[in-house]
């Protein structure tokens, strides 16, 4: 800051994004999380290019090959093969795509539904608000996996139903956050000013108030990503989510269970992939929370 400033020009304040980045990068854990997330996204986008084999091709001459660094089966498959001879590395890479899609779809569904219900509850107090919030309390009374299992029991097992189930499970968090943020904003002068200027309810909801409620929602959406990946893997593991031969991490683990004594890699590696991705989104979410909203800091 030693440069001589032109007295006529005030130094421009940093934009909101620059400021966010400056706070975010102070948190080393958050940067590591972000780096892993970027790597996961690249993996998912370029899965067809970087996966050495097809995720469903079965090399029947090479079932349960050990990883390349163990001097057993040679270097043909870097992370070994599964019980029917599919390349574990390729399945993990394609599983990344699946996990991110699961996260994107369920968080997207839950976020849009939750924001809508939260805005309604925040704007129209009274009967509607009580109905919505009571309903959310009932959903919160059940632990997430139990509720997801209940929803899957109704809809039937499968990847799509698992995503709906996870979206329903996460809904109350978004509704409560949105409503709380809306109620905080509604008391402020700029909303009253906009109302006096003649803005209709819909405009007030989506154009005036909603953008100012974004910070906690972004944080919750990031953390929701990790919850979605974890719950989808748990449902897949229980046989209630993605069905084989889909290369989903949880169902990969479940189908390799009987080989736990003979082939450690078919059990260890999918779980490691789940842990690393969940951890990355949690680290990033914590960092975003600290950077976006000092009030939420714990």
């Amino acid at each position, binding site marked *: 800051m030693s440069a001589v400033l032109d007295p006529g020009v005030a130094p421009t304040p940093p934009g909101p994004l620059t400021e966010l980045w400056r706070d975010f990068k102070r948190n080393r*854990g958050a940067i590591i999380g972000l780096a892993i997330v970027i790597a996961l996204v690249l993996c998912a986008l370029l899965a067809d290019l970087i996966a050495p084999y097809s995720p469903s091709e079965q090399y029947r001459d090479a079932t349960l090959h050990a990883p390349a660094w163990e001097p057993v089966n040679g270097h043909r498959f870097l992370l070994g093969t599964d019980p029917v001879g599919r390349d574990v590395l390729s399945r993990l890479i394609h599983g990344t795509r699946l996990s991110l899609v699961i996260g994107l779809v369920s968080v997207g569904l839950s976020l849009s539904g939750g924001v809508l219900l939260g805005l309604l509850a925040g704007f129209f107090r009274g009967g509607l608000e009580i109905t919505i919030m009571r309903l959310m309390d009932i959903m919160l009374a059940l*632990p997430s996996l*139990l509720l997801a299992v209940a929803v*899957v029991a*109704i809809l039937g097992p499968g990847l799509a139903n698992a995503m709906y189930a996870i979206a329903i499970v996460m809904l109350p968090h978004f509704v409560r956050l949105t409503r709380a943020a809306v109620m905080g904003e509604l008391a402020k002068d700029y909303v009253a000013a906009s109302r006096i200027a003649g803005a209709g309810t819909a405009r007030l909801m989506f154009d005036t108030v909603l953008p100012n409620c974004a910070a906690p929602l972004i944080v919750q959406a990031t953390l929701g990503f990790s919850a979605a990946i*974890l719950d989808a893997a748990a449902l897949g593991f*229980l046989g209630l989510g993605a069905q084989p031969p889909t290369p989903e991490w949880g169902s990969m683990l479940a189908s390799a269970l009987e080989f736990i004594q003979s082939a*450690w890699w078919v059990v260890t590696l999918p779980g490691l992939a789940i842990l690393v991705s969940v951890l990355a989104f949690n*680290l990033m979410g914590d960092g975003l929370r600290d950077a976006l909203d000092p009030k939420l800091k714990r």
Partner: protein
Amino acid sequence: MFSFLLKRFALVIPTFLGITLLVFSLIRLLPGDPVEALSGERGMTDERYQRLLHEFGLDRPLWMQYLEYLWRALHGDLGYSTITHEPVFHEFITRFPATIELSMCAMLMALVIGLPAGIVAALKRNTVLDYSVMGASLTGYSMPIFWWGLLLILTFSVTLGWTPVSGRIAIQYDIPAVTGFMLVDSLLSSDAGAFKSAVSHLILPAIALGTIPLAVIARMTRSSMLEVLREDYVRTARAKGASTLRVVGVHALRNALIPVVTTIGLQVGTLLAGAILTETIFSWPGIGKWLVEAIHRRDYPAVQGGILMSATVIIVVNLVVDMLYGVINPRIRHQ
């Protein structure tokens, strides 16, 4: 105090009704007609169909059916399992002690490790110790416990051979079920080998199930402790010349534990949900494993009853925790 308890109790009723409604609609939303499913391939006459419909009470309006369901559920009648033809309530109750035993041991482990870890992390803030506790806690919080359980089996059962892989006790011990809790029953049988066997079966599942509550409790204790350590009364206690042990143990800890108690209560839900995964991995004969099997066998009365009962347990525990909260924190009663 009494009106606080009453108010809190009144809030439970709509939640319970909502859950019965959800569980009741579980059957209604299922595709297929239960009476037609009974008829088999030959089909049935229209007259017989109507009679069966009447017998099951399915010809009455939905709200009447719901009220009847509610009435029966309140009396512990949750219908019969379509696979074993046993009353669902009985099936649940006989398996529940196994889940309670596992959950209590998991929670005990989480508390014994989590509380001191959180306190130490807060006292040694921004040191390597603090960072490692928080790093471990975040990893534990992100852990897919079904995989964590498998890793424990792989290490301690398969490679080292220290603990058995599954079940509650070795098959050579035939322990009469007095309380349903294997640890207690095997102690009562006064066979030291049986007790040892029960303990060795319990350790790994308890670690797997306790990991997430442990991580949450450590994090919560640390942040709550940090907040309390900044309070004026802590500074006053220090200024008076009280020893660090006294300041932390007597002045700070009691107040820091208030939010932690709530967290512990909330973890009961996590434990019951985690039991679904843990029991499946370790073949632990509790309600989690039973529920998953019921879903796979399409035993819908069992699924319904299991979900309703688990939800009820969680609601009751949360109610008790809220009341305890009012007892240890008088400020909340006077809002």
